[in-house]
């Protein structure tokens, strides 16, 4: 069987891969409401936002809700971003704002109900060691006692492993303020832990040293 070939010269045009788009291009596409931009923005930034939420709240399920709230705001307010190359900062400033609101809401709920609500920690599902799961829960009970701003600074520095400068930039605070908040948070947590000799002894006994 023969095939007739066209004599017209053709060239292959490859559609650009959204993953190659810069943050600035992505921001402009979001503002223009390009459908691909929503998918790409989510896949590019949601993993980090969800991980931040999980580390901050100690809950996988709550972190999913927070991420949806953050990106809903990002997508509806993308046209307000004046510097498209700062899309990453734009998203994380929304994330920290939503997380702070959630932490304040928890504090208010505890105050209004005149009792400390149960700290639900659903992280570490793959930890089969029940002692590790218990330590994790006790750690988040202590974090619940911190003020939201202190907690966020502590999480960014010690759980997200950011430098003080990076944490200051993320939270839109001065470096000296971040240092002050961090010292306060660390001192308080250390004091509360020391007041629980069983916890310290247990960590020592298990050889859980940094």
């Amino acid at each position, binding site marked *: 069987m023969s095939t007739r070939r066209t004599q017209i010269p053709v060239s292959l045009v490859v559609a650009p891969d959204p993953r190659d788009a810069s943050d600035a291009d992505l921001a402009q596409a979001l503002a223009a409401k390009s459908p691909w931009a929503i998918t790409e923005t989510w896949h590019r930034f*949601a993993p980090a936002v969800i991980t931040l939420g999980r580390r901050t709240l100690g809950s996988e399920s709550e972190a999913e809700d927070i991420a949806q709230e953050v990106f809903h705001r990002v997508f509806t307010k993308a046209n307000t971003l004046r510097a498209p190359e700062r899309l990453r900062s734009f998203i994380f400033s929304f994330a920290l704002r939503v997380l702070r609101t959630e932490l304040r809401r928890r504090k208010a709920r505890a105050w209004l109900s005149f009792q400390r609500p149960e700290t639900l920690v659903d992280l570490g599902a793959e930890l089969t060691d029940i002692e590790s799961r218990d330590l994790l829960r006790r750690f988040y009970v202590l974090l619940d006692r911190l003020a939201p701003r202190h907690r966020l600074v502590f999480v960014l520095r*010690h759980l997200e492993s950011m430098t003080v400068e990076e944490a200051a930039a993320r939270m839109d605070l001065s470096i000296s303020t971040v240092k002050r908040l961090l010292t306060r948070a660390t001192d308080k947590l250390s004091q509360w832990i020391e007041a629980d000799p069983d916890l310290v002894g247990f960590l020592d006994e298990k050889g859980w040293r940094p």
Partner: protein
Amino acid sequence: MTAPGESKGGRALAALAEIARDSVRPPSPAELDSGLDGVRARLYADQAKRAVRPTSGAALRWSLVGALAATAALVIIVATRSGAPPSPGSAAPPALAYRIEGGTVVEGGYLRESGHAGIKLFFTEGTEFILMPGTRSRLRTVDASGARIAIEHGTASFQVTPTPAGNRRWQVDVGPFLVTVKGTVFTVSWDAATEKFELRLRHGRVTVNGPVSGGEIALQAGQRLLVDLHRGETVINDQTPEEWAEAAAGPAPRASAGPVRKVDTDRQWAQALAAGHLDRILAEAERAGLKATLERASSEDLLALADAARYRRRMDLARDTLLAQRRRFPDSPRALDAAFLLGRVEEASDSGLARALEWYDDYLKRAPKGTYASEALGRKMTLMSKLEGVSRARPVAEEYLRRFPNGTYAGPARAFVRAP
């Protein structure tokens, strides 16, 4: 200055931060897809809201088109995600909504317990599902026509509110059995290790389908069905209110007008444990008398007491409590867990290592796929290397790697396999 200091508290804080940092896993592709669907649904809803605002001319027409498209997309998303059939029309009951206490729904509809207090599901129309601690379950569907939940292992109580038209269907998959209910209060349990099924029906009517001869089994209020698949036994008998009360130990269904003996379940130690009030639990047990507590406390409270005692290093009390759990509730999933935990208790002293090994063996024999199977096998491997040498631990290490290649003990297991 900003790093946790060199004090004891500072070092412990750094260790805790490390555990927390390492415990967080990145979201899976399925979780990301599901999250993106959620955001898109909210965006569609926004569009729909904007579209119904009164505008004029062409804008109105285009908005209506957008609204219709958005609404259609929402309907498709909701129907696809819930697996629900299209609404049958005005005769259909209103959609069901529910809230969860003590856990979350994770990928595949599995219910993940977030503490030691079990999980409770409350549906808007009044139906309640109460899953005892350690119960493994999956929410299969929730839609306007009812809900279907699967109990893979453990015990659960159900209080189903009947609808006037009787147009809701509630189904419970319990191991290989299917329980269909309409307006009922009952407790059901399934032990995957021993293949024993039990259903205690307090009010209403249920039918049970499963691998038993004679086809569908219909139960009346007050009856108890016991099926032992291993022995091929099926027993239906009447239960007294006292027996029902004992079966409902733990989070019991709402009180009835019947003459039910009061069950000693108001300590709420599981909640206290989840909140870290270990000393309160121990103090209350001592105030009530340890012996009396071990004889009268519910299975759930015994588990919480054992945990509190272990965390406070009161191993004698932990041991007695776990043994009481096994003696008083021998067929419950917690009795199995107690075997593993007794191993942990015995491991706390050098003289108890051989006994710990026996407990782990017992647990693995009775629950080879149990919650703690990976941990029990890992501990068994470690103890065997200590007590009998690496060569005796090697077959256990090989078994561990075969069954749990990514488990907590995979590293040591590989070392045992490679050791000369």
